[in-house]
């Protein structure tokens, strides 16, 4: 038996030890009270944000059909390789892993990560589009080693015949930084795809649809465990165009590598049946998240294929403008159909000598023969009598100097010069000789091929045609069809039918009475038209007269309609450096007329 030890002094130390521990545990209990009672809403929200991910369910973009329901733009499933940024714990390690994957481009990944910094980290970033089956298998097989990479099925815009449709349809690519700041794109986020040109851009709101949303439960590695709820996307509307792809393709074939553009309009409705701009480009190359290598070849092409030459480019109208002067002269009464002028090959007006294109002169010309022969001297005289103000007024009434209002992007106004314009734009007074130049379509006049086709349609319809347009109708998933009403934007012309009839007769003669446009003639179709040849006299060419190059050749125009009685279609063809209008542009117009009439007859046969 041991002697009892005095443990009294130890008891207070024991108490101190117990107190320290007790205080610590009490503080911890208070911490939990703080976390679980006072801050519980805050942490509950954080835990919800942890587990619930909102994913965008992309709305499929609307289909685009031609007037015969041929598919011009559709959506094709494509495998994309994506990066989930929330799954990245060590960026350098992830980049190193990606670097070792042969088919991924590390630069795309690095720039992508920088570009989409603003997006929430659960929004995946596409680092490769159109992954092949081997590449998809490669990524899928490495889900454990590469948890931050995944394969995602996306619907990618696809154009079955891209070269033929690109001038009208444009293309779809990622919304740009600048566009994101515009109000019309305010619902979009970086990385979203939008129409960037043509119809895709003009009707982006119709085609885009409304994205859906799904809320998913995810685990800490961002893997989807289940779906909480889902709002289905509203698909974009199906858009039917006025365009007839068969006519378009016939026209493209007729161009045979020439540079230029052509437009065919339905005179009765203003529908654009064909719009061609050559050279064209492959819109599939430009569509998507990334610009492919072919992008540079499109950009560096000296003929700028991205321009829609029918509406983005304006040129001097040349002799086709004589129709405007003729209409103005008749309507204003300064001439009658019987008024004659003598053409000796040149005329001296306001102290200057103006030449006719025919050196020996045409002799005595009335209105009809002056149009058929495109006699300059006749129109110098009419132009002088009309004066610039009235010429300009009729030019504007007949479709020039302002956009036609076509539903495509980037339409140019062109230019109808008058003294007021010259004063403000050039700071100089109009001099009378300029009026004479304008009367035969030279001088500062600028028109686009679409304006020219519209002009022809106005003449053909005695001013009753409608605004040119490419949208025929559209419908949504419910099947409700919304037709485009072309009557809005139709303009009052106020020129008598008899005047138009005189000019139409002249145009018939141009094609069918041995005139400059005889190469456009189609047997039995009474094609009417007018040719134009535009001198290319740039300073560069004048400095270097020895080089008779392609660039020195004149531009050629053909503008016309058919048939003479009850006109149906109007055409404008412009070939850059094509030579005389009658030689290059007129045969292309002929192809268009032939295509139109043979298709029309075929269809009426099958219909009946």
């Amino acid at each position, binding site marked *: 038996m041991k002697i009892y030890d005095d443990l009294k002094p130890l008891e207070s130390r024991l108490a101190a030890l117990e107190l320290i521990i007790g205080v610590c545990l009490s503080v*911890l209990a208070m911490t*939990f009270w703080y976390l679980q009672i006072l801050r519980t809403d805050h*942490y509950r929200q954080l835990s919800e944000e942890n587990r619930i991910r909102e994913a965008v369910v992309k709305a499929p973009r609307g289909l685009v059909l031609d007037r015969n329901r041929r598919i011009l733009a559709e959506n094709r499933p494509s495998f994309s390789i994506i990066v989930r940024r929330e799954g990245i714990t060590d960026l350098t390690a992830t980049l190193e892993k990606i670097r070792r994957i042969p088919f991924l481009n590390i630069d795309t990944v690095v720039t992508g990560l920088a570009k989409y910094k603003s997006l929430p980290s659960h929004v995946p970033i596409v680092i490769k589009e159109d992954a092949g089956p081997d590449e998809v298998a490669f990524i899928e097989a490495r889900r454990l080693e590469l948890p931050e990479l995944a394969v995602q099925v996306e619907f990618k815009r696809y154009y079955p015949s891209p070269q033929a449709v690109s001038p009208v349809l444009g293309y779809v690519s990622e919304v740009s930084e600048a566009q994101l700041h515009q109000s019309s794109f305010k619902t979009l986020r970086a990385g979203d795809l939008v129409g960037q040109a043509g119809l895709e851009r003009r009707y982006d709101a119709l085609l885009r649809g409304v994205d859906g949303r799904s809320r998913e439960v995810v685990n800490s590695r961002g893997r989807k465990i289940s779906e909480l709820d889902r709002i289905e996307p509203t698909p974009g509307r199906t858009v039917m165009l006025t365009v007839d792809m068969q006519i378009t393709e016939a026209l493209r074939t007729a161009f045979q590598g020439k540079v230029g553009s052509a437009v065919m309009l339905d005179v009765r409705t203003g529908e654009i049946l064909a719009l061609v701009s050559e050279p064209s480009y492959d819109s599939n190359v430009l569509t998507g998240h990334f610009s492919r290598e072919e992008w540079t070849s499109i950009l560096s092409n000296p003929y700028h294929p991205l321009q829609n030459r029918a509406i983005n480019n304006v040129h001097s109208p040349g002799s086709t403008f004589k129709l405007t002067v003729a209409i103005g002269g008749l309507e204003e009464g300064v001439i009658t159909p019987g008024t004659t002028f003598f053409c000796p090959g040149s005329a001296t007006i306001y102290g200057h000598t103006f030449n006719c294109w025919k050196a020996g002169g045409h002799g005595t010309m009335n209105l009809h023969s002056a149009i058929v022969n495109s006699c300059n001297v006749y129109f110098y005289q009419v132009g002088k009598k009309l004066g610039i103000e009235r010429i300009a007024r009729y030019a504007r009434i007949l479709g020039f100097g302002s956009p036609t209002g076509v539903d495509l992007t980037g339409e140019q106004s062109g230019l109808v010069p008058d003294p007021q314009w010259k004063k403000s734009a050039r700071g100089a007074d109009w001099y009378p000789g300029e009026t004479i130049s304008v009367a035969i379509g030279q001088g500062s006049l600028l028109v686009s091929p679409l304006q020219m086709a519209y002009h022809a349609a106005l003449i053909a319809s005695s001013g009753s045609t409608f605004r040119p347009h490419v949208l025929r109708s559209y419908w949504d998933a419910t099947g409700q069809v919304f037709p485009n009403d072309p009557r809005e934007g139709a303009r009052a012309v106020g020129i008598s039918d008899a005047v138009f009839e005189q000019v139409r007769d002249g145009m018939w003669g141009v094609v069918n009475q041995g005139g400059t446009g005889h190469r456009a003639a189609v047997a039995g179709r009474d094609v009417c038209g007018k040719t134009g040849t535009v001198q290319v006299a740039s300073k560069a060419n004048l400095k270097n007269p020895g080089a008779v190059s392609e660039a020195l050749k004149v531009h050629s125009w053909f503008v016309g309609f058919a048939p003479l009685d009850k006109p149906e279609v109007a055409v404008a063809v412009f070939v850059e450096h094509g030579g005389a209008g009658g030689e290059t542009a007129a045969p292309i117009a002929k192809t268009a007329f032939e295509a139109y009439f043979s298709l029309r007859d075929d269809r009426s046969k099958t219909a009946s």
Partner: protein
Amino acid sequence: MIDRRLLVNLDWVLLGSTLLVSIVGVMLVSSASQSLQTGFAEKQASWCAIGLVVMVIAMSIDYHRLADQAPVFYLLVILALMYVLFFGRIISGARSWITLAGFRAQPSEVAKIVLALMLTKYFAEFRQNRVSAREIGAVALIVGIPLLLTAAQPDLGTAVTFLPIAASALILAGMPTRWLVGIICTFLMISLFAWFFLLKDYQKDRLTSFISPEADPKGSGYHSIQSRIAVGSGGFTGKGYTQGTQSRLEFLPARHTDFVFSVLGEEEGFVGTLAVLGLYMLIIQRGFSAARHARDRAGLFLAACLTSLIAFHIIINVGMVAGVLPITGIPLPFLSYGGSFTAVMFVSVGLILNVRMRKTVN
């Protein structure tokens, strides 16, 4: 083996609360390991059973006999620690495991008990009111050797848990104030030295991230934030057993081991955390009560050192879960999944019960 008379003094409250916490532990491990392979809860349950057996053994043998054998245990543990340093299995970066007759065990866990017994033995016959440099030096040596060996594995977390055993023994033995100040200063200097020369980057990250976990939420602060989100989102009543999203969707790290208390907080809410903290307080209070009523100095030292050891684990781990202390990888007694650790905690309770049973002879 156990004298029937001794059972009269068995502390049923301590035993009961220990068993209760252990049952909660098995349930939490079961909930937390849903997304892992199965079998964790069953294993934890069997370790508790083994723990109960060794606990009964620990309370049966008179603690005086155990303390007398302390130097032998001490020597064996030092040898085992040296052995694992060279031949041990590496698990989660530390060479700390030894395989004995098919069982894997961590000598560093066993060292906790042995140190308590060794210091008990050392101070059993110490009759002065204040310790002197000699005693402090001796304690530093006794604790220092296994501490350095464990730290070298490297398992800094376990090594640190040896300190409260030494600290409580010295405080009980009568620590002069100037020594206390001196030791704290020395400790700070060693910490600074370790910070600049010894600690590896991941260890530093873990220690600093608790100060501002939001600074690098995806990096070293991630675990701390996720733990706080789990606990805080539990609210008053919790999300329900096995319904914790932070745990189920794997946002919580080490949820069946070091962060098991986060699972409790998320699924059972403030009610659950308070209940378990209450049980812990009960265990600690009964531990100190055993020390207070010990028949002699040896009993007092043994019960107090082991109670301090248990309390230290609880405070450091729960503090880490609450995000107020750094992440150190110190497990939670009776709740965290782990064989050696669970067994050692049961042995500690067994020894406290041992002291209690053999209180003042009537």
